[in-house]
């Protein structure tokens, strides 16, 4: 196995173009498991840990640009305000040791339907920045996940960053696992209420071949919610939202849970996340008034 260690982003892109089958390695928390268990023997590894830009984040116009190599620990410590749902999701990833290393770029690179970053990125309508020697492309998270572990990223491209729209309302992420810590999700869910565009966003994890949106649930909530007056939602509306979320899922039975359980869990998480979000929204509105 060859080892490429670019010192700059330009070198990294050139190396990926020259060796399209080189496997990028950032935190290594997915790649190393495959190497240790010989599940996959790539011809080359492309070490991204020396590329300083990848670990940077900051404002980018009205958005926040999160380098693909920013660790979950940093996201928890620094991005709670800008991207609360992503920070909540980061808090549920694995253990402190893995959060010190694991990254959103790695989550997107592997594109497991159980990855905890995906529901918040979908719900918040984040944009993935892809780059190659030929230039930079922006792909909406909502168009990034194409099939089981298949994404819009081309072989010669690296993930540079995630662009998070300026937050204008509450966001909540929920995850169900077989215990409280160190678990891959049995199912996960994220909802966002965006006061600026008056739209709701959703993201579903671990309940389909890819991370999913519940589009009908978003449309229902966007139409039903009292964006202006911030009146409470009826119990029936909250329940209907939960049902629409569950029906958007396409889960399977596996070692972590049955398809039926996943659908049930999603409807419960959707109701909870929505109720918390509406409460937050009403508090926010009261403060403005």
């Amino acid at each position, binding site marked *: 196995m060859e*080892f490429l260690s670019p010192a700059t982003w330009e*070198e990294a892109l050139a190396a990926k173009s020259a060796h399209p089958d080189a496997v990028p390695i950032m*935190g*290594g928390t997915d790649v190393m498991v495959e190497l*240790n268990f010989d599940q996959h023997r790539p011809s080359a*590894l492309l*070490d991204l840990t020396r590329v300083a830009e990848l670990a940077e984040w900051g404002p980018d116009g009205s958005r926040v640009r999160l380098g693909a190599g920013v660790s979950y620990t940093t996201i928890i410590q620094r991005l709670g305000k800008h991207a609360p749902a992503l920070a909540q999701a980061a808090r549920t990833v*694995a253990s402190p*040791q893995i959060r010190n*290393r694991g990254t959103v770029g790695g989550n997107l690179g592997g594109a497991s339907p159980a990855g905890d970053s995906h529901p918040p990125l979908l719900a918040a309508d984040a944009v993935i920045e892809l780059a190659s020697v030929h230039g930079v492309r922006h792909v909406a998270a909502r168009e990034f996940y194409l099939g089981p572990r298949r994404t819009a990223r081309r072989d010669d491209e690296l993930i540079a960053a995630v662009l998070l729209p300026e937050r204008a309302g509450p966001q909540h992420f929920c995850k169900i696992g077989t215990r409280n810590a160190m678990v891959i999700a049995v199912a996960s869910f994220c909802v966002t209420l965006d006061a600026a565009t008056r739209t709701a966003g959703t993201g579903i994890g671990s309940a389909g071949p890819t991370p999913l949106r519940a589009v009908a649930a978003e449309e229902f909530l966007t139409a039903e919610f009292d964006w202006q007056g911030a009146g409470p939602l009826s119990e029936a509306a909250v329940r209907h939202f939960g049902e629409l979320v569950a029906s958007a899922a396409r889960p399977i039975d596996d070692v972590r849970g049955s398809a039926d359980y996943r659908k049930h869990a999603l409807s419960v998480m959707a109701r909870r996340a929505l109720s918390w979000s509406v409460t937050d929204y009403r508090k926010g509105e009261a403060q403005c008034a």
Partner: protein
Amino acid sequence: MADRARLRGPEPVTVELSINHRTRILEIEPRTSLLDALREQLDLTGSKKGCDQGTCGACTVWVDGRRVLACLTLAITCEGREITTIEGFSDGRRMNAMQRSFIKHDAFQCGYCTPGQVMSAVALLDEGHASSDAEIAE
């Protein structure tokens, strides 16, 4: 060419690591984990191999002062960084407060993963997340 990433391997390559403030030079394949490098090449067997997949924590070491799992870290990516293992943790004669505290409270089961627990526990204190029992549990 200056804009070319350095290419090494696939044959064993010479890697220089700083471990417990000592420079160590080893010949390893690029795919070697830090845990295998420590245990198999350098006889630093205090870091344990439990699961080799990031679950158990028995291989916890510090890289540049942050707790990480040696099994999920490539040794070659640690060049130029400071690695601290359980062996580097006390001065060789006197144990540090965390180790003494483990003994005092009989905080062992079989003891295999104790080194990882100690490395993790000290980092927990350093990170400032241990002001109460509830916070530690969290």
